[in-house]
C-alpha cells in the first residue's frame, strides 16, 4: 500500500494499491466514455426537433430522411450498450479484485505483526477493519466513485459546449450550481460534528446492548431484567434521537440544495422565452435547452448528496492505512536449536501500557536446558508476564531475554516460537473438526500422530463420546466442549508439537 507523499490524492484517500488505482482510473475513463456516448440520443433528439420545426415552416423537405436519424439512433444504442458493458466490467472487476488484494495484503501484513500487537489491540476492531472497512470501500469503488468522477467530467464538458453554443441560456442552466454546492459545503461542518456525536452514541448503545446480552444469565439470576435494562434503554433512546437529528440536518440540507439547483428549470423557461420573443435565440436552441434542463440535474443531485461522503473518504480509510502501516515484527535471526540452550532474563523491565506501572522491575535469572522452572507468587505479581515475555507475546521495555546468549528481540518470531509450546489458560478453538484442531499444533502431522498426542492428553474418552468422534466440528470457540475438555485438547496441541 502506497505511503509516499507523491501518491495521488484519490489513491491515498481510498488506500488503494497501485494496481487498484490504475484500475480505478480506467473505470473512471470507461464511465466518462459511457456518459459521452449517452449524448448521442440527446443530439439525435435535437435533430428530430429540427426536422419537425422545418416542416412547420412549410418546408416539406425530406421527412423520410428521419429514417436515417433512426438508423443512426440504432447505432447509437449499440454504442451506448458497448460502452456501458465496458464500464460495468471495469468497475466491478476493479472493485472486487482490489478488495481481494487489500484483504489478502492486510491479512498477510497481520501475520507479520509482533505478538504484542495482538495482545494490546482490540481484536474486534481488527476484524472490522478487514471486513467492514474493506467492504464499504468496495461498494464505494463499484458504484459511487467512478460514476461520480465521470459525472463531474461529463457535466463540465456539457457545460463548456453549451456555453460555447449559447452562453446566456447555459448560464441559466448552471447558475444555481455554485449556490447549491455552497449550501452543501456550508452545512458540512455542522454535519460532521453531528456525525461524530452519532458515532459516539452508536458505540455507547452497542456497548450497553452487548453488556446486557452477555450478562443476561446473571441478570436473570439476580431478577434484574427490568432494572438493569435502564442504561441500555437510555443509550438506545439517545441514539434514536440523535439519528433523527442527523437525518433532519442532512435531508434538509440536501433538499435545500436540490431545490435551489432545480430552480434552474424555471430560470431557463423565463429567460429562454424572453430571448425567443426578442428574436435573440431560435426555437430549436430553446427546445434543446429545455431538453437539457429537464435532464441535467439528476446526476448533479447525486453528486451533491454524495459530496459529504466523498469528502470524508480519507477518514473512513484512515484505519485501513494505519493498519497497513503498522510496523512488522522486528528480528530475522534463525532460532533453530536455541530452544536447547539456556534462557536468561537480564534486568528485564516491563509495563503493559508502555510507561505506567512497571509489572517487572529488573528481573534477572537463568533457566537451564532440560530443567523445570516454576514461578510462584501472589496474583498480579508478574508470573504470567515473565512467561509471556519468554514466548515473545510482549517485548521487554528494557533489558533483554536471551536464549543461548542470543537476544530474542533479534530473532524471527515464528522461528523462535517453534522452540516453545504454550498451554493457554484461555483457550481458543477453531471452527473445525477435533482432528484438525489438534493438528494445528503441527501441520502435516499424520492422523496416527494426532491420535497419539490426543491419547497422551487424555482426550480420547470424551472425543469418543461425541456424535462424530474425531470428525466432530467444534463450532465457534469450541462451544460444544466443557472447560476442562478445552484445556486438555489444547495441551494435546503442545504434544503434537513435540517441542523441545
Amino acid at each position: 500500500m502506497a505511503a509516499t507523499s507523491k501518491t495521488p490524492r484519490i489513491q491515498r484517500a481510498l488506500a488503494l494499491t497501485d494496481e487498484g488505482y490504475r484500475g480505478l482510473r480506467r473505470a473512471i475513463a470507461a464511465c466518462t466514455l459511457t456518459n459521452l456516448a449517452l449524448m448521442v440520443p440527446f443530439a439525435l433528439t435535437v435533430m428530430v426537433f429540427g426536422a419537425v420545426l422545418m416542416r412547420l415552416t412549410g418546408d416539406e423537405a425530406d421527412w423520410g430522411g428521419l429514417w436515417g436519424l433512426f438508423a443512426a439512433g440504432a447505432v447509437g444504442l449499440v454504442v451506448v450498450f458497448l460502452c456501458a458493458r465496458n464500464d460495468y466490467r471495469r468497475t466491478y472487476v476493479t472493485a472486487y479484485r482490489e478488495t481481494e488484494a487489500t484483504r489478502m495484503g492486510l491479512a498477510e501484513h497481520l501475520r507479520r505483526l509482533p505478538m504484542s500487537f495482538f495482545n494490546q489491540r482490540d481484536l474486534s476492531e481488527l476484524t472490522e477493519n478487514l471486513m467492514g472497512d474493506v467492504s464499504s470501500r468496495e461498494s464505494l469503488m463499484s458504484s459511487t466513485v467512478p460514476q461520480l468522477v465521470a459525472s463531474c467530467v461529463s457535466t463540465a464538458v456539457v457545460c463548456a459546449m453549451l456555453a460555447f453554443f449559447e452562453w446566456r441560456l447555459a448560464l441559466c442552466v448552471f447558475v444555481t450550481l455554485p449556490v447549491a454546492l455552497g449550501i452543501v459545503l456550508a452545512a458540512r461542518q455542522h454535519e460532521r460534528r453531528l456525525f461524530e456525536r452519532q458515532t459516539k452514541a452508536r458505540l455507547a448503545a452497542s456497548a450497553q446492548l452487548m453488556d446486557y446480552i452477555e450478562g443476561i444469565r446473571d441478570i436473570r439470576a439476580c431478577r434484574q431484567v427490568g432494572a438493569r435494562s435502564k442504561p441500555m434503554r437510555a443509550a438506545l433512546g439517545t441514539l434514536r434521537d440523535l439519528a433523527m437529528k442527523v437525518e433532519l440536518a442532512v435531508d434538509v440540507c440536501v433538499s435545500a440544495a436540490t431545490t435551489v439547483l432545480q430552480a434552474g428549470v424555471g430560470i431557463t423557461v423565463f429567460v429562454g422565452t424572453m430571448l425567443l420573443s426578442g428574436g435573440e435565440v431560435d426555437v430549436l436552441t430553446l427546445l434543446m435547452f429545455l431538453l437539457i434542463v429537464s435532464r441535467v440535474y439528476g446526476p448533479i443531485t447525486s453528486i451533491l448528496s454524495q459530496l459529504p461522503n466523498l469528502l470524508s473518504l480519507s477518514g473512513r480509510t484512515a484505519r485501513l492505512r494505519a493498519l497497513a502501516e503498522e510496523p512488522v515484527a522486528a528480528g530475522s535471526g534463525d532460532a533453530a536449536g536455541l530452544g536447547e540452550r539456556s534462557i536468561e532474563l537480564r534486568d528485564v523491565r516491563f509495563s503493559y501500557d508502555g510507561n505506567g506501572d512497571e509489572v517487572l522491575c529488573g528481573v534477572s535469572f537463568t533457566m537451564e536446558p532440560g530443567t523445570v522452572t516454576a514461578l510462584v507468587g501472589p496474583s498480579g505479581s508478574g508470573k504470567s508476564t515473565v512467561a509471556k515475555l519468554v514466548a515473545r507475546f510482549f517485548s521487554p521495555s528494557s533489558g533483554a531475554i536471551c536464549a543461548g546468549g542470543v537476544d530474542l528481540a533479534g530473532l524471527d518470531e515464528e522461528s523462535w516460537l517453534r522452540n516453545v509450546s504454550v498451554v493457554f489458560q484461555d483457550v481458543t478453538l477453531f471452527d473445525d473438526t477435533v482432528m484438525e484442531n489438534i493438528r494445528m499444533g503441527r501441520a502435516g502431522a499424520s492422523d496416527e500422530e494426532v491420535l497419539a498426542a490426543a491419547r497422551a492428553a487424555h482426550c480420547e474418552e470424551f472425543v469418543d463420546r461425541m456424535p462424530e468422534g474425531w470428525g466432530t466440528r467444534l463450532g465457534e470457540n469450541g462451544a460444544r466442549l466443557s472447560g476442562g475438555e478445552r484445556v486438555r485438547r489444547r495441551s494435546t496441541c503442545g504434544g503434537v508439537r513435540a517441542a523441545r
Partner: protein
Amino acid sequence: MAYNEPGAAQDAGAEKSQSCPGSTGGQATSRQSWAARVIGFTGGGRWLIYLSMALSVLSSACTFVPFVAVYLVVADVIAVYPDFSALDAARMAGFGWMAVAGVVANIGLYLAALLCAHSAAFDAEYHLKLQIVEHLARVPLGRLEALGTGRVGKIMDESVGAIEGYLAHSLPDTAAAFTAPVAIVVLLFVFDWRFGLAAVACVVAAFGVEAAGFSNKAITEKMRRHLVNQERMSNATVEYVRGMPVVKTFGQTAESFGRLSEAVRAYTDLALDVALFWQSLMPAFTAIINNAYLFILPVGIALGAGLDGESFRAFALDFIFYLLFVPSIAGALNKMMYISEDSMIITAQLARIDEVLGIEPVPAPRAGEARVPERYDVELDDVCFSYGAAGEGSAGEKDGAPAGPLALDHVSLAVPAGTTLAIVGPSGAGKSTVASLVARFWDVDAGAVRIGGVDVRDIDPDDLMGCMSLVFQDVHLFRASLLENIRMARPDATREEVVEAARAAQADAFIRALPQGYDTVFGSAGVHLSGGEAQRVSIARAILADRPIVVLDEATAFSDPENEHLIQLAFERLMAGKTVIMIAHRLSTVVGADQIAVVDGGRVAERGRHEGLLAARGAYARMWARYTQALSWGIESNASNDKEVA
C-alpha cells in the same frame, strides 16, 4: 444528454456493502407477508410509514410538473410559430413559475416523506432491539448459549439495521417507483395513445431484459451460494484475527493464512461471477431506457408522413412532448431496479431476526396455577436429557423421543434442605447439565426436577430464580461500579451490606485497592480483574442475595493457589446453612460435602460421603488416587519434556 446515475445516490451513506448488482429478488408471493411484517415492527408509527409512502408518491408525481410546464411552453411556441413576438410573456412567466413550483413540491414532499419514514424507522429499530432483548430474558438460557451472544450482537447490529434502512429508504422509494408506470399510462389517455403505447413498449422491453436475468435458475443458485461464501469469509476473518496469537505460537500462520485466503478467493471469484452474469443485461437495460426516443421516433415518422397544415401542427406538439418526456422514464425506472434486491436482502435479515425471536420462551405456569415452594430441598427424579433434542426442537418438546446422545440418562438425586451435594466426574460427564436443569436453563426430556416437592416447571420463572443463587465458572461483570455489580443481587442493600458481603467473599481487599475502590467502574480504562477476582465478586453477589439454594459451578482452573484458597474461604461462607449443589472440578473441595455423586456418561455411578466412597474402592476412589498423585505432579517424570510456565 444523460449520465450514469451514480448508484449509491439512492441512499447517501447507507451501505449496500457486498450487494451484487442486479441480484435477484425473492418470490413475489412472499413479499406481501414480509413487507407487512417489516411495517409491523413500527407498531404505533405505522401510520407514519403509510403517510411517508403517500407523500413519496405525490412527490414523484410532482417530478412530472416541470415537464408539463415545458410542454405548455412548447405548445404556445408552436402555436405562434414562426411569429414569436406574439408570445404572451405573462403566460410564459406563469409556466416558469409552474416548473419551479413543481420542483419545490417534489423536493418538499420527498423531504417530508423521508422524515416521516426515518422517524418511524428509528423508532422501529429502537423497539425491535428492546423486543429482542426482552425476548432473550424469557427464553431458555441454554438456547441462548447455543446461539451465542456474538451472533445475537451481530443480528442486533446488521439485521435490525437493515430493517431500519428498509423502512427509512426502500419503502418510500418503492412507492415512488410505481408512480412512473402509472404516469405513463395516464399520459397514454391524455395525449396521443399511439405514442403512449410506444412508451409502454420501451418500459416492457427494459423489464423484459431484466426478467431474462431474474428467471435464470443458475444465477439464483449462485446468489444463494454467494451469501454463504460471504458468511464463510466473515467467519474465516474473525477466526484468523482472533486465533492469531495462538496460531503464531504454533508457527502456523502460513496455514491459517491459507484458510483465510482460500475463503477470500472463493468469495471474490463467485462475486465476480455473479456480477459478470449481468454484464450484458444491465448495460442492455441502461441502453434501452436511455434510448426511449427510438421507440417514439418510428411512430412519429410514420404518423407524420401523411399530414399537412394544421393537422401536422397538432401532431408536432404531441411528438415533441413525447420526445421531451420519455427520457425521464430512465430515472424513474432506475429506482425500480433496486426493489427486488432490497426485498431479497430484507427477507434474509428477517430470517436472522427470527432465529432469536423464534425461540420459544420458557413455558411459564398459567397465572393462578403457579406454585411457590415452601421447603428448599432439591430433587432430580429419573431425569433424562439430551442437548440434541433441546437444541433442535422447541423448548416445549419434552415428551418426544430424545434425538441426540443422552447427556443425562435416568438420573435421580436428592439434596435435603441445608445439605451439600457435590457432583464430580470426568469432563463431559454431565455435571454442569445437572446445574443447568436445576436452574431451568433447559427443561428435562423426561422425569422431573423438584424444589420442595414442586416441579420447577410449575414455579413462576421469577420465583424460581428468587430462591436460588447461581455462581458460574465464567463471570460476567457489568460496565458499572463494583458496588452496583454486587448490589444487583439485592438492589435495596445498603453500602454497608455490600461491603460486608464482599468481605465475606474475600473480595474486599482487592476492591479497596482499585483506583476508586467500590466506585470503580468495571471495564473503564485500566480496570481489569483476574478470573479469580471476578468470581469472588460474583460470590459476593450470591452472599448478598442470601437465597436458600446455591448452585455453584467451580471454576476449572486458577492461575495461583492463593486465589484458590481465597475462593475456598468465600465458598464456605456462601454455603453455610444453604442447600448447595456444587459442580466440583477439583476433588479438594468435595471432601466435606454431605453427599458426593460421581457422574459418568450421564449416569450416577456412585453416591455417598468421601470416606464411604473411598472405602467402596470404586470410581471415586480411583479418581481420588489420581488426584492425590497429580498433586505431587511429577516434575521428575516430565522434566525433560515440559516447560512449566506460570
